[in-house]
């Protein structure tokens, strides 16, 4: 039974594969394991019934329940979502406008300048931006006495702009100009052309940019940590504070939910970007 001979006996294997490099597949597999093992462990232990993050004591939802009941977590989550939504919407709107202004055009005076200006947050280390905002906002606080959420909202909007801008710009650059010319030829005013042709075609890019901005804002630790006033913890800064203490699987539970949100967002982003124009 074990001696099943193949129907056609072939003399040689796959032969010399020019794409193969010795050991590369092994290292790649190791890499993927390395990337995912810690994340998976983290998720698994979020379901631990015990209080340890290393000793498995059975399955339980208890840490999710306790995280849900934790008012600090509730507050921080609501704040995170508020900031991320605001920053995503505003940064996407201004980024869309900027993208429309800077693509499919002759090299007008200042184009390079605008481009560099918009991408600047990508080139400056977060800690430096954070410190700069801390100093700047401190003097405004002194001058105006205002200590509300506005500082975080505007800071997040600013560093989200390049992330929203890039996918929209990419989409615009792949768009066929002749479609808009055709619309104009068919008696559409510039505004009608934008509403009826440009915007619908650009929509996947805008959505992708908005989602990227949302995720980036949601993930931010450094700038928020430096800019926030007392009692303005977002979920990541709350977690950063908690890491100094004894860690319970409640942290794992919060992280897992966070992870799930990120993965859903990235998946949608991926699918949006994959659809070719």
């Amino acid at each position, binding site marked *: 039974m074990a001696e099943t001979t193949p129907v056609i006996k*072939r*003399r*040689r*294997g*796959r*032969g*010399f594969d*020019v794409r193969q490099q010795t050991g590369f597949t092994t290292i790649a597999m190791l890499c993927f394991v390395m990337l995912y093992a810690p994340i998976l462990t983290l998720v698994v232990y979020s379901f631990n019934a015990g209080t340890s993050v290393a000793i498995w004591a059975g399955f339980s939802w208890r840490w999710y329940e306790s995280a849900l009941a934790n008012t600090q977590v509730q507050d921080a989550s609501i704040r995170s979502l508020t900031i991320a939504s605001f920053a995503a919407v505003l940064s996407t709107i201004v980024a869309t406008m900027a993208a429309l202004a800077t693509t499919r055009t002759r090299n007008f005076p200042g184009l390079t300048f605008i481009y560099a200006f918009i991408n600047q947050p990508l080139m400056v280390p977060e800690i430096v931006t954070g410190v700069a905002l801390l100093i700047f906002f401190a003097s405004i606080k002194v001058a105006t006495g205002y200590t509300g959420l506005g500082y975080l909202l505007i800071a997040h909007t600013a560093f989200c702009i390049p992330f929203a801008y890039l996918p929209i710009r990419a989409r615009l650059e792949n768009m066929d100009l002749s479609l808009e010319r055709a619309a104009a030829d068919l008696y559409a005013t510039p505004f009608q052309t934008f509403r009826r042709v440009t915007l619908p075609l650009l929509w996947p890019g805008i959505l992708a940019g908005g989602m990227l901005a949302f995720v980036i804002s949601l993930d931010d630790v450094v700038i928020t940590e430096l800019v926030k006033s007392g009692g303005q913890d977002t979920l990541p800064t709350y977690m950063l504070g908690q890491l100094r203490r004894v860690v319970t699987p409640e942290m794992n539970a919060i992280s897992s939910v966070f992870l799930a949100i990120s993965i859903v967002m990235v998946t949608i982003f991926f699918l949006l970007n994959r659809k070719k124009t």
Partner: protein
Amino acid sequence: MSAAVAVEAKDVSKIFGAGPGEVRALDNVSVTIRQNEFFTLLGPSGCGKTTLLRLIAGFEMPTEGSILLEGEEVAHLPPFKRHVNTVFQSYALFPHMTVAQNIAFGLEMLGKPKAEVQSTVNAMLKLVRMEELNGRRTSQISGGQQQRVALARALAPRPKVLLLDEPLSALDLKLRKEMQIELKRMQLETGITFIFVTHDQEEALTMSDRIAVMSKGKILQIGSPTDIYEHPTVRFVADFIGETNFIEAEVMQRIATDGQIKLPSGVVISHPLSENVGVGAKVTLAVRPERIDLVRPGTEAHLGGTVQNIVYFGTDTTFHVALDGSGQEVTVRVQNRRGHQEVLKVGDAVGLRIAPEAMQILKD
């Protein structure tokens, strides 16, 4: 011409994929290529000619069968252990190296001393007439020059066999004609065996010592250009190379190797027959258009018909003649000589006369 063997493929099959989607790119192919030969693999795209070349180069391994290089089994060897070099269809010149660095690459990999590498590179640049361009990047030279560099690079390590995968297909017509002559010159100068893959029958006929015509993973006929052109043995070869008229006929009688064959017109001619053709068998005769003479209808004509169409080509004129009875169209090409005024018009009745040696009996 009984030179030693350079490359031998024995019962080689190559199957890509598996299961219902598998593709048999080569089907039990055997061929022997002699040393110093300019050997051409000719066929339409997808016939397996490039696969056979890649098997010899070592980029693929045969599913079955063996490949011998100067009598030595190499089917299992990776390409860098085979003393054959390839001129790629796309040239595949390294963009990050200069012309000279490209040519030196193979020699360096073989661990040749610096001085030797240098002198060989110079000799190669001279051979392909590119001395002045040695320091250029490969992206800064024209397509024809890239072609020459690719040739020099492949010839530099003095391979036992040079494989050329449709190297001229990217060049324009004038350059292609020039390179055909160049290639032949280089082959004679270096004495290296060339295996040349092309789908261009004219290219094959002008350059090759011998040609293997391939179709659907099989070699149909191997022979010299004249052999292939004058005496095609199967219908595909006759059809693929040049223009051919196919005329159905019937064997009436045979005495030893001599047969009496009845043409559609009822005229019976005698023609040598191969072993396996018996009396009563239907055969196909292949006749080149330029081997048919137009004569007055009558006794000396083998076939009769009506002129359907006359096309003037400058050097010659082509007549399309519908045969009496069957209506089959036969193409006749007549050279235009000075003072030779054609008096034929469309609708005229003509006779066709074919020399016996111009008729080729096909197998299928």
